[in-house]
């Protein structure tokens, strides 16, 4: 793998050059802290911002996304025939994505790109996107990403991993996509590989030391689904929950969605929206029956999905990358780290 060094004085110029071929996404500040958003030509990514409230999953999986459309105008030959909407699958790059968020995209990929079905909306967006990560030098108190198979300098899912060295970025080019992006920016000052890797290792170790929170997940796969499902602790876990969708919407790995139809004049549109297992509507049958009618059933579903069903189904660890967003944003302080520990340590009677 080759390394390049990017003087911060050249950073904005490089981004500007890349705008000819890429739509650029990155962290920007608004009144609610930092968000990953498309950058208009006058905007540059706020690389040293903290963790964004919302994860970058929306770059590939917008909260509301048009899928199909049809005309309802009976005078048209193709009336009532649904067709995919035109999509913009030109190249895009996400700058300053955190390493755990890149791993999250790989976990989400397991759902949208599987041997039986490929979701073209997600898959095409994924294929068009380059992920330029920035190692997290100072992880925050909610970060437990070293327990989830990644960490502050994890490379998985990234095309480029950069390290912030005050006056410059040191960038490790991990894929061809990453190389193409660096080329488009005109970043071509190579750095010594061995030296650079050593520097990355030091930074990684320093950063990992700052992560004080951890969870054990080693026992989860051995537990029985039914034992965990019937375990006595769920009422306590769920008591404070108000059943809002915050945890699921801020989560980089939550992929569930709803499909809705709307009509405007003579056009029908089918689109999808993020959905949440916290909502009773999620599983409400038309008959009125609801298999997850109570709050505790829904809370249990969220944690069972992330920490047990996913573990069993994919053998890729838990469906959580340890970003801590749900911990920080939950209005009632339900902490997935505590729940994971309870589940991991649960002994059936």
């Amino acid at each position, binding site marked *: 793998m080759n390394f390049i060094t990017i003087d911060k004085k050249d950073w904005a110029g490089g981004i500007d050059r890349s705008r000819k071929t890429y739509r650029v996404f990155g962290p920007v500040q608004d009144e609610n802290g930092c968000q990953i958003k498309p950058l208009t030509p006058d905007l540059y990514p706020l690389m040293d911002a903290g963790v964004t409230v919302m994860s970058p999953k929306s770059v590939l999986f917008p909260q509301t996304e048009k899928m199909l459309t049809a005309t309802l105008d009976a005078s048209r030959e193709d009336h009532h025939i649904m067709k995919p909407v035109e999509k913009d699958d030109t190249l895009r790059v996400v700058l300053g994505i955190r390493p755990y968020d890149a791993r999250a995209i790989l976990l989400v990929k397991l759902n949208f790109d599987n041997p039986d079905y490929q979701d073209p909306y997600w898959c095409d967006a994924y294929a068009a996107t380059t992920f330029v990560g920035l190692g997290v030098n100072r992880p925050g108190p909610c970060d437990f990403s070293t327990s989830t198979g990644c960490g502050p300098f994890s490379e998985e899912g990234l095309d480029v991993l950069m390290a912030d060295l005050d006056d410059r970025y040191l960038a490790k080019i991990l894929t061809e996509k990453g190389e193409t992006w660096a080329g488009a920016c005109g970043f071509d000052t190579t750095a010594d590989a061995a030296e650079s890797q050593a520097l990355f290792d030091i930074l990684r170790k320093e950063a990992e030391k700052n992560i004080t929170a951890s969870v054990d997940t080693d026992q989860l796969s051995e537990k029985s689904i039914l034992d965990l499902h019937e375990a006595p602790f769920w009422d306590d876990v769920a008591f404070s929950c108000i059943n809002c969708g915050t945890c699921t919407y801020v989560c980089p790995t939550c992929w569930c969605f709803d499909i809705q139809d709307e009509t405007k004049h003579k056009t029908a549109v089918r689109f999808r929206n993020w959905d949440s297992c916290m909502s009773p509507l999620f*599983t409400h049958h*038309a008959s009125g029956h609801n298999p997850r009618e109570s709050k505790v059933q829904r809370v249990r579903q969220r944690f069972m999905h992330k920490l047990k069903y996913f573990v069993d189904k994919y053998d890729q660890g838990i469906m959580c990358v340890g970003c801590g967003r749900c911990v920080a944003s939950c209005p009632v302080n339900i902490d997935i780290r505590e729940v994971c520990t309870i589940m991991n340590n649960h002994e059936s009677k």
Partner: protein
Amino acid sequence: MENPYVPYPVRIDDIEVATEDKSLKTFTFVFQNPEDEEKFAYKAGQFAELSIPGVGEIPIGIASSPVEKGFVKFTVFRTGVVTSHLHNMKKGDIMGIRGPLGNWYPWEKLENKNVVIIGGGFAFTTLRSSIVYMLDPANRSRFKNIDVVYGARSPGMLLYREELFDWEKRDDINMHITVDGTDDPEWKYHKGFVPQVVENNAPVADEDTYAIVCGPPIMIKFTQPALTKLGYQEHQIIMSLENRMKCGIGMCGRCNIGKELVCKDGPVFTLEQINQTPKEY
């Protein structure tokens, strides 16, 4: 890349009121593009999303049989927004069908076996598909005895009545038709609930006998002990589950029972499998 969300365009070729209370109608669809019919190759037990542009989609079991060509049939209970809209549609209207989706009854495993079909109320659609499939001259010899227990509230609530009475007359299928009650003096079939009729009439299980059970939860609940009494093991009881679905292809996340997705890993499960998952259906 194939877009699994795009429905095949179909035309409503026929609409038939299926029950005396008019809450069920059977829709016959013809594919607008003949090549789509081939792509829609299905097996008995699968379902599809009926797709009405601007209104929505609804997962419905396929009631026609793979051996019936040139059309597909669905019997739909009017209950929510999409099904109510569908009930008001007319012959000739254009809409969409997406599928076939989900797994099917385990036809490979059922070869050279006795098959007992047990259905109640309007959960008889994929069972009709299965019966027509098994009775097809090309297939009948692949199965041993076929028994069918089917019950509804009243004679007028039985689906596919003409076919039922035709099958009744055949000697290669044992029909046990029942109604909860009727004051029709001409009624010559069973009276009573499905579980009781099963207990009294269904064959005792040996290792070559399988039961396929579809019906309302209350029927299923009481049919299970009847089957157990007759010696059916959990792996010999095959069921089809329903849950709220949207995508039908295992991506939108809502229809799971444990780690299984009813839309993709199901809807057909054995009781043995179901008993190993949380009962969230």
